[in-house]
């Protein structure tokens, strides 16, 4: 059965003890599009992402990925996931081994030649082919995030989800990063990016989800949002600086 939506979230509620992180969130995302999730700190953006990719298991409601229940889908396939940069510290692991992590479920006992080939190809897709033998902590923030994308896409997922992937990167690195993500999206992958950078939202997105515990708005474009919207969402005046690269 062909499914119009790659992701359908119905009445999603997530709690951490007594604290409600997300309440009755509902939305549907079409496949092959580029979506951005924005919202204030503590608004539940990361919780939403972590629940979709399978890091958080304790939730109420329904998550369907390509028409299948989340757990059923995740048993068969991975959802590509790129975490925040700050989650990584100094660790004696090579770039190639980080990318191989993404093929962990494909191997039987140990990684074989074909796995290494796939990993190198993924690195090539993110323009990091010359870095396979470097240690992950020897790379710059932008390079490290490219490796994380390679790890996320090496298993050729249908959806790629990124949780604030450009925090701490300079503007040029952010721009290069989003260009790369846009290319992946144009190859058919559905992309969902959590970000604070409202400017980049307008530049690359096909749709915006604004989350503050609940789904506040699900817009097609930043231009669709009322002028006072971000002030209301973040609690203070935010001006969306629009970039000039709109497709």
């Amino acid at each position, binding site marked *: 059965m062909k499914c119009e939506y790659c992701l359908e979230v119905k009445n999603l509620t997530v709690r951490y003890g007594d604290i409600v992180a997300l309440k009755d969130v509902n939305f549907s995302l079409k496949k092959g599009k580029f979506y951005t999730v924005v919202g204030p700190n503590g608004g539940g953006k990361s919780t939403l992402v*972590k629940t979709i*990719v*399978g*890091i958080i298991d304790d939730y109420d409601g329904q998550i369907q990925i390509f028409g299948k229940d989340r757990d059923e889908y*995740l*048993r068969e396939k*991975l*959802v590509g*996931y790129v*975490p925040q940069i700050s*989650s*990584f510290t100094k*660790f*004696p*692991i*090579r770039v190639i*081994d*980080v990318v191989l*992590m993404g093929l*962990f*479920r494909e191997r039987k006992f140990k990684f074989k030649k074909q796995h290494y080939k796939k990993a190198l190809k993924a690195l090539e897709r993110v323009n990091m082919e010359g870095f396979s033998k470097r*240690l992950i902590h020897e790379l710059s923030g932008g390079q490290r995030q490219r490796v994380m994308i390679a*790890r996320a896409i090496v298993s050729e997922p249908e959806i790629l989800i990124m949780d604030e992937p450009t925090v701490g990167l300079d503007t040029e690195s952010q721009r290069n990063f989003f260009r790369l993500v846009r290319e992946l999206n144009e190859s058919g992958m559905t992309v969902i990016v959590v970000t604070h950078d409202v400017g980049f939202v307008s530049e690359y997105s096909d749709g915006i989800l604004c989350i503050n515990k609940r789904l506040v708005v699900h817009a097609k474009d930043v231009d669709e949002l009322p002028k006072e919207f971000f002030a209301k969402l973040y609690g203070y005046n935010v001006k969306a600086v629009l970039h000039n690269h709109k497709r």
Partner: protein
Amino acid sequence: MEIFLYEFGILALIGGVLSAIATSLLGSVVVLRKMSFFGSGIAHLSFIGVGLALFFKLSPTFVTLTVAIAAAIILGFLARKGVHEDIGVGILFSTSMALGIILIYLAKIDNSRVMAYLFGDILAINWQDVVFSSIVTALVILYIIFFKDHIVYITFDEDFSKVLGINIPFVYYTFLILLAVSIVVSMNLLGIVLVSAMVVVPAASASLASRTYQGMFKLAPLISAFSVFFGLILSWNFDIPAGASIVLVQGIVFLFTFLVKILSR
């Protein structure tokens, strides 16, 4: 080398090398996870087991193993709830030693027996100890063969490990239980005071000498086994305590590796 002409020397070498392999393989994970205090903590917590066994006249090995495994599980549980392994150990460390000392005092045991638990006696181990060490070492090697990548992934990026569907509690608690058992086995050789060196020092040297975690897992057992071999020779030739000699060799290897690393920059 004369020491290896005697049965006790051969037993010490076999038991020591087996123990060295087990503790250093798990020690590599300990160093990667930055929980170096944990090994020392488990050994000290096990002192309650020694006290209980002597007080109630039970088998010290059985009681100590039970206490060590229980302690590892409790500390692991606390760590999963956000209390770092080393903080949990810090809280329980002194209290458990105090309780062990009180129980041993009340049991009115000869001090030399207590000293054996504190400082170990590798030259007094028997074939039964060697068989026990072999079983534990075989389990540790199997764990590393099958779950090395799992535990490394969990250490490097736990969230992504969850995405991959790794059974994190199983891999983590199995590691802690094996670590506790290996420490108790090594306590017979080196005693409570020195056993943490077997876990941490060879792995720390390996982490300096190798670029990658795969290199650490290969090098740490070699360094540790080498230290046992030369530690025993040093002990025999200079008539000094064997356990302390082994740890001394480990310390020298670490210092040497550290200096080479610094000078080669």
